[in-house]
């Protein structure tokens, strides 16, 4: 059913499983005027680098780009919290006319002296790409003068979508690798890529790995430290979550240092367990596998009784998912199933062809699969499928709430730990507390049903 909510040019990015052979357009520029939920290249770079807590993050551009990304993410640090400050060169008209290089150099000079970061990232924004500031040169000069790495991030907003920003962040980070000491690293060692330590998740994941006998060398980038990234080439394996964001970095490490990588997810019981098993089996040491099994057994036992209570209440309820990366959507489909819920719509801002093929495989007939959606489409899907729960981010929340639908925030702004076994329980609690709230009986959608 194509209604007026859909633009003709968007038709190929919406699929209903079972209706026609699977085909979905993706990884395209957002359609002008379609009110995409996507942000920009800069956003992608900020997502990846933001959690590096002992680095200075200087946004070279007008004030907006810095101010809209100030302390909005739940990425925690166990030490310094420099990442939570918002630095901007706050370019003015005169800088746009005469160039912003001098201002940038002066800003770097002052900020590095003041905050003594271990490195600095300088983010390029739309107009920097246009006025032709030579970020590379300014950063090189600052590196020499200050004795810390000062790294340009080519994140001009208009140069593609969020994925291009991930890539820019990864190549900036890659410049750090190989400069740290890699002595004293266990042969069973990993880097954790693509976890951003929202609400402390990476601490939990590290603890699971430690209990299984596996050493974590670098967090990339949750609770991240420059020194760790500088020695991450000493790890034996890269464990990559949120592959869209950090797979490029893993590929660089593989190319330059021969470190293999595996893709995992820490959301949901199945995927969390699978992540531990996959890492243990990579090292082919039966003892590691035994320890991993015991971690899983222990943790699952802890949460099962409470989970089954939620499952009873939530069984048969219908859920919709719209998230940034499609990889997270796989886990969510499984996690919601574990709670007895039916996923009737799933989509992402930046999924790839492979992602969507996999999504199509794991979803039920009739499920709507959508790429780079927008408010009118999402609202019409909610109505069409009579959804009970929407899982998304801040921009999806008011759409769900306006229509009287329960909501779970699974984006970077959230303050709830949703990864790991404990995270699965938190997720279930949050879903339960929204879906089972008495407020829905008062919203027009339910009260008008009679």
């Amino acid at each position, binding site marked *: 059913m194509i209604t007026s909510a859909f633009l003709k040019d968007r038709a190929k990015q919406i699929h209903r499983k079972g209706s026609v052979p699977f085909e979905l357009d993706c990884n395209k520029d957002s359609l002008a005027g379609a009110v*995409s939920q996507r942000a920009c290249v800069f956003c992608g770079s900020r997502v990846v680098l933001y959690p590096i807590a002992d680095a200075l993050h200087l946004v070279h551009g007008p*004030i907006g780009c810095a101010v809209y990304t100030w302390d909005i993410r739940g990425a925690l640090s166990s030490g310094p919290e420099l990442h939570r400050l918002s630095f*901007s060169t706050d370019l003015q008209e005169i800088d746009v006319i005469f160039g912003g290089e001098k201002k940038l150099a002066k800003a770097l000079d002052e900020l590095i002296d003041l905050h003594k970061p271990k490195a600095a990232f300088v983010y390029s924004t739309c107009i920097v790409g246009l006025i032709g500031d030579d970020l590379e040169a300014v950063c090189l000069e600052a590196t020499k003068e200050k004795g810390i790495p000062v790294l340009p991030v080519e994140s001009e907003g208009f140069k593609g979508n969020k994925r291009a920003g991930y890539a820019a962040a990864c190549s900036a980070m890659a410049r750090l690798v190989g400069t740290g000491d890699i002595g004293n690293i266990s042969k069973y060692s990993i880097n954790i890529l693509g976890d951003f330590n929202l609400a402390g998740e990476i601490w939990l994941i590290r603890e699971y790995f430690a209990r299984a006998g596996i050493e974590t060398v670098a967090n990339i980038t949750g609770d991240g430290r420059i020194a760790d990234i500088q020695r991450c080439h000493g790890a034996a394996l890269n464990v990559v979550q949120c592959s869209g964001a950090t797979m490029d970095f893993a590929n660089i490490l593989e190319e330059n240092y021969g470190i293999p990588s595996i893709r995992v997810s820490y959301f949901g019981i199945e995927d969390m367990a699978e992540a531990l098993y996959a890492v243990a089996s990579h090292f082919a040491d039966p003892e590691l596998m035994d320890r991993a099994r015991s971690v899983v057994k222990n943790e699952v036992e802890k949460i099962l009784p409470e989970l089954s209570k939620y499952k009873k209440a939530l069984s048969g309820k219908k859920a919709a998912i719209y998230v940034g990366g499609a990889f997270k959507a796989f886990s969510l489909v499984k996690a919601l199933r574990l709670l007895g819920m039916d996923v009737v719509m799933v989509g992402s801002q930046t999924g790839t062809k492979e992602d969507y093929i996999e999504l199509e495989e794991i979803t039920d007939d009739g499920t709507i699969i959508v790429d780079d959606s927008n408010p009118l489409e999402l609202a019409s899907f909610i109505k069409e499928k009579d959804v009970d729960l929407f899982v998304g981010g801040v921009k999806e929340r*008011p759409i769900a709430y306006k229509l009287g639908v329960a909501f779970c925030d699974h984006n970077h702004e959230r303050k709830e730990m949703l990864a790991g076994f404990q995270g699965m329980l938190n997720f279930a609690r949050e879903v339960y507390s929204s879906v089972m709230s008495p407020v829905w009986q008062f919203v027009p959608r339910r009260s008008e049903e009679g």
Partner: protein
Amino acid sequence: MKGIPSYTATTNACKLCKPLGASLAFRGIEGCVPFLHGSQGCATYMRRYIISHFNEPIDIASSSLGEKNAIYGGGPNLKLGLNNVTEKYHPQVIGVATTCLTETIGDDLHRLLAEYKKEFGTESSPLIVSVSTPSYSGTHMEGFTAAVKEIVDQLTTESAPNGTINLFSGFISPADIRYLKNVCSDFGIEVTLIPDYSDTLDGPALNDYPVIPKGGTPLAAIRNMGGARCSVEFGWTLPGQTGGKVLESKFKTPLHQLGLPIGIRASDRFFDLLKELTGTAIPEKYVASRGRLIDSMVDAHKYVFNKRAVVYGEEDLVVGLTSFLVEIGVQPVLCATGGKSGKFENGIKAVLDGMACEMPVVKEDVDFYDIEIMAKELDVDIVIGHSKGYAFARKEALPLIRVGFPIHDRVGGQRILHLGYEGAQYLFDLITNTIIDKKQSDSTVGYSYM
């Protein structure tokens, strides 16, 4: 006090960018879709920022420019975007604001829109209002004021005198807007309040997603604003060109500019003006609420007397709050803003005139880094402003009284009433109780009877 060091970079800005203000203003026009001509990220970031305050959907379209557009011009995407918004949203108006990207590549919006109208315009096409809002010059307030000015300049036509009153109320909360409309109605005034986002950004739960939410300043009323009896425009720090000035020079509509009616004297001035304009006595209920306000101030004056406050935010809001604070005996010690209209200090001086209090430190063009340094020296008791001051207030263990925009760490930002006697009553109770709460929590005794 010692001078604050002048840093090149902005750290934790106390301002937002220009297109955000324009988007909010456009959202207050009936049937209007805000549209940013620029990269996709701007629209998305601003939506997220606005949503987090109002807890309401806000669809802001974008021309979603990519790299090619930045080189060859954004015209084709602008036109495609306008067509898509027209098709999907059926707007009466599209409010197009530029961004730093399109201003810097030199897109000539007037020419592009004229071409667009020629190419695609029909009788049923939406009206298009455009405003130049490069974020490298001015803050969200300049964007807001400029958009309102352009709406009037581009949509108002010559009309016969109609006895209405125009109210340019500035950037206030939906609760404030509703209050002003009630006041006017109680005076028997037919008012054109612009922009009116009291419904569009604070609407009811619905059964269907509102493609464009109901409400907003009616277009028919905007067209006839030139024939109004007069215009009333709030603000001490407005630029030379405003909506009120445009009507004055184009249609000779008399203009009264006065500060935001916050506190007793500024509210008196507003009510007296309405009395004078209508020849009607101030309705009894406002006389009564003024009486109750003063009575409550007497009851609680000792709790607040001589408490030292830092007030920050948009220039006019700070001027208004300062005026109120000195009326209740709170000493504003620092009045700070990220704006730089050049009129801020005079505004503060004007509202302090005749009040026995010391002149506070008044700083424009500052960020929260500066505010924190200054606050440390000023022996502060309370902090008054939006959520972004929380970081430094927490560090200094100072209570934060949340007003204005954005309120990102509490619910109900849209329902904060700042204006009139009722707003002053709310603020007074809030400030007093915050001070009592602090005293009570800090006490080792723990009195339950204060």
